């Protein structure tokens, strides 16, 4: 048996004591890796197979994923991947997600990377583990591997002998690095992947089983609330908390600089105390916010770092027809339905935090920095919260809980943000401006394309330094917010999907990255793609109109990718899109297409809506979608995510913008930030999944946001003749555009 390599490693306890699973990053291996081809998915960052898969003596299989369940159904899809390649029933798999002491570090569950990075890793790791099991069985049974078959947790020989997985493994069999290639099954033989499988987490959530961090209730837990300042940068100048400290149930008032919180026995007591504290606290106002009415001018005038992300041919050609348009998008809210929550305990120099953060490892690093602790002394465990749709307040509430836990060692501290906290303090999706200009030749083909986009960063996630944690900026010794950095292409931040997928011989795209952030911003589902696809797909319609072409045909004219062709054609066909269709008065139809990031899932959408002339109110009708996610692991999961993306995007597009005054954010609850309710939801949404067996997984969670927005704008233009380019497309704006 090989000796264990002599470096830091973390041990994981298993039940039954059959198998010790460990993972370690070996410097030797890391060095080797430089000369070795890339490993599939996130195996590349965490190459040891036993970091991903463990099998105990009873044959129970545990899969470790660094990605987290956000409600997107990833747990189920990953179980399907593992079960398929390992050849067991999905019920035999336990999936552990996102835990800094148990799972690989896969960064953030974001950017629709889960299937591409984690799914791929697990698929391949599982296949390789199956290969190892067959190898071991071959040795054990003294038969060539070709006469063996893995099935239902057992390796079976042609001569009828068999041996169960649990019996095969001893010691370090899985403690070896993955290979660049794997004995993946032929998709023709799939029995789990691509086959219907209900989500493993739904029944528990619908029958009251504990499922969320909000449901955790360890003994001795205290309920805590934070008193946030009245606005960004305000300073706590005066506080006499004596009266609050003697309120019923109050255990402690915690103050560190301008960070102010209270912990109590009961939840309503904590809320009472928070309100009393709020009335007693005196603040010095921070810097005033800019005027909302002129925010786009303000943003355009801020210094920017400009980069040309596409420069093709000789941009600047004039054709038979040239068009220009400018599009605007306001700050928008994640608005998680359950405000953020975290549980933390500080015991024996160790901090444990249960959090719905999208990135437990980066959060761990930031917390360690904030509390001046070694990283190994901070343990972050992902437990679900409500849907986050990007960087919401999950990390901030974890920081709050950590600070209060440190002030009350030995007590589990639960911090629940209030609705007003979440609406007022979460990092918003940034306001954006885009300018498009294009020229068509006499045949109606695009010959020139120029696109500029202005945006703040789309990521202020906590990583190493603590300054991106909200509370850290308000401590007596505050951490400064680190300078924001753009996310480079091909992913992009504000420039995500800024490069058009359409074939244009001369094209230039410039991304204007604006570091200064008047409002707090970070990643909101689809990042810049929501606005860029809204802009580009609206513009394509305007161009099609100028060319006298049907919007669907105009797009096909400029798409070279056959998979793009397929989704466009399918959506149009299933919708029943006829060129020159005549709809009743006030009705319109719209089409849009995008490939998320130009490298993830393809999504095309056709929809019909009605505009009420007297009020400008929009009534969404039938929506038909075609999506290509590569190999579809869970079709219903894909449909669910796409339906959700479309409804969410429709709400953003028709209603949503953060409002603010000089003194602070004014949209603090659902009355001041309305979102779509049932009566306004679309009449129907049909999603057609184009399955591509054997193809790479393509991230799908964010593919619907942009196309939905553009299709709505296009349909409104079709219904009314009015082209709106400033989001949200409210009834008031539509009415103003269509006149009396």
């Amino acid at each position: 048996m090989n000796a264990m390599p002599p470096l830091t490693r973390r041990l994981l306890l298993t039940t039954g004591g059959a198998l010790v699973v460990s993972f370690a990053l070996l410097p030797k291996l890391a060095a080797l890796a430089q000369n070795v081809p890339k490993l599939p998915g996130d195996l590349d960052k965490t190459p040891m197979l036993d970091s991903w898969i463990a099998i105990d003596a009873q044959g129970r299989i545990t899969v470790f994923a660094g990605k987290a369940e956000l409600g997107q159904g990833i747990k189920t899809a990953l179980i399907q991947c593992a079960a398929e390649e390992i050849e067991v029933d999905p019920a035999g798999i336990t999936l552990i997600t996102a835990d800094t002491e148990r799972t690989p570090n896969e960064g953030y569950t974001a950017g629709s990377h889960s299937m591409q990075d984690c799914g791929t890793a697990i698929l391949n790791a599982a296949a390789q583990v199956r290969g190892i099991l067959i190898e071991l069985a071959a040795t054990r049974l003294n038969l060539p591997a070709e006469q063996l078959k893995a099935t239902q947790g057992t390796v079976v020989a042609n001569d009828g002998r068999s041996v169960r997985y649990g019996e095969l493994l001893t010691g370090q069999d899985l403690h070896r690095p993955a290979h660049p290639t794997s004995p993946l099954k032929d998709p023709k033989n799939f029995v789990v992947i691509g086959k219907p499988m209900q989500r493993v987490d739904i029944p528990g959530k619908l029958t009251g089983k504990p499922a969320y961090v909000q449901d955790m209730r360890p003994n001795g837990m205290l309920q805590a609330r934070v008193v946030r300042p009245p606005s960004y940068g305000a300073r706590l100048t005066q506080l006499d908390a004596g009266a609050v400290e003697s309120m019923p149930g109050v255990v402690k008032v915690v103050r560190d600089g301008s960070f102010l919180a209270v912990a109590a026995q009961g939840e309503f007591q904590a809320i009472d105390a928070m309100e009393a504290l709020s009335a007693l606290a005196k603040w010095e106002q921070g810097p005033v916010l800019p005027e909302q009415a002129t925010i786009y001018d303000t943003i355009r005038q801020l210094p920017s770092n400009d980069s040309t992300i596409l420069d093709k041919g000789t941009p600047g050609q004039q054709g038979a027809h040239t068009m220009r348009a400018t599009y605007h998008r306001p700050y928008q809210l994640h608005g998680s339905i359950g405000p953020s929550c975290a549980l933390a305990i500080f015991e024996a120099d160790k901090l444990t935090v249960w959090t719905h953060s999208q990135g437990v490892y980066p959060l761990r690093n930031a917390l360690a920095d904030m509390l001046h602790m070694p990283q190994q002394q901070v343990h972050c465990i992902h437990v679900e919260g409500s849907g986050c749709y990007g960087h919401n307040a999950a990390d901030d509430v974890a920081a709050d809980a950590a600070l209060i836990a440190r002030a009350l060692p030995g007590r589990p501290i639960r911090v629940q943000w209030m609705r007003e906290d979440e609406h007022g303090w979460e990092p918003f999706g940034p306001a954006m401006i885009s300018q498009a200009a294009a020229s068509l030749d006499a045949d109606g083909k695009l010959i020139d394309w120029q696109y500029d986009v202005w945006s703040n960063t789309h990521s202020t996630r906590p990583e190493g330094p603590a300054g991106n944690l909200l509370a850290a900026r308000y401590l007596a010794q505050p951490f400064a917010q680190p300078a924001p950095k753009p996310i480079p292409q091909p992913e992009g931040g504000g420039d995500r999907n800024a490069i058009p997928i359409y074939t244009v011989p001369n094209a230039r795209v410039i991304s204007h990255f604006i570091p200064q952030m008047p409002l707090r911003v970070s990643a909101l589902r689809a990042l810049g793609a929501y606005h860029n696809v809204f802009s580009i797909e609206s513009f394509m319609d305007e161009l099609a109109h100028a060319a006298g072409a049907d919007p669907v045909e105009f797009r096909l004219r400029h798409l070279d990718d056959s998979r793009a062709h397929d989704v466009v054609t399918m959506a149009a066909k299933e919708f029943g899109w006829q060129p020159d269709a005549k709809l009743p008065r006030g009705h319109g139809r719209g089409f849009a297409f995008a490939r998320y990031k130009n490298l993830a899932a393809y999504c095309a959408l056709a929809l019909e809506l009605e505009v009420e002339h007297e009020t400008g109110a929009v009534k969404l009708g039938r929506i038909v979608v075609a999506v290509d996610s590569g190999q579809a692991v869970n079709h219903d999961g894909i449909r669910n995510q796409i339906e959700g993306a479309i409804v969410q995007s429709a709400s953003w597009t028709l209603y949503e913008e953060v409002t603010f005054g000089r003194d602070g954010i004014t949209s603090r609850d659902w009355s001041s930030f309305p979102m779509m309710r049932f009566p306004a939801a679309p009449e129907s949404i049909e999603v057609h999944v184009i399955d591509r067996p054997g193809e790479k997984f393509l991230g799908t969670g964010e593919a619907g946001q942009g196309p939905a927005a553009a299709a709505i704008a296009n349909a409104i233009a079709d219904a009314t003749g009015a082209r709106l380019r400033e989001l949200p497309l409210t009834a008031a704006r539509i009415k103003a555009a269509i006149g009396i």
Partner: protein
Amino acid sequence: MTVLNVNGQQHRIDVDPRTPLLYVLRNELKLNAAKFGCGLGQCGACTVLVDHEPVFSCILPISVLEGRYIRTVEGLGNEGRPGPVQSAFIEEQAAQCGYCIPGMMMRAQGLLEHNASPSDAQIRDAMAPNLCRCGTQMRILRAVRRAAKAMMADAGTIQETAK
């Protein structure tokens, strides 16, 4: 001391009677389904049934609930034997993050107890007080329709059996 009847069981609750029902359900009674979404009666994540009416438990103090019949999702069924509304939601896979769904199910239950075969417009209006941020509205509507059919069929079966 306030005595509350929750899902058919009596509980003696010794907290401030001003405490909203939601906190008592979650903290004293350790029931997970009803959720905190806003505390302002705007989102419906806390919806439960009181005397067959869907109510916002976040703004209902327990002092008004003595002698009244409180039902939560836990009273509709469990994982082994889900009730018709729960089964319908599971069959339609009507959840993404799932946080709003218990509130949705209680409002749907309340609706179907008043109106056994609501039209689509009636379902939408009845469900309007409840928000879903993930965009699961289409599935939720399908689940309510499915539950209505199932409950009508059950009622028909009971009538048949009773004959």
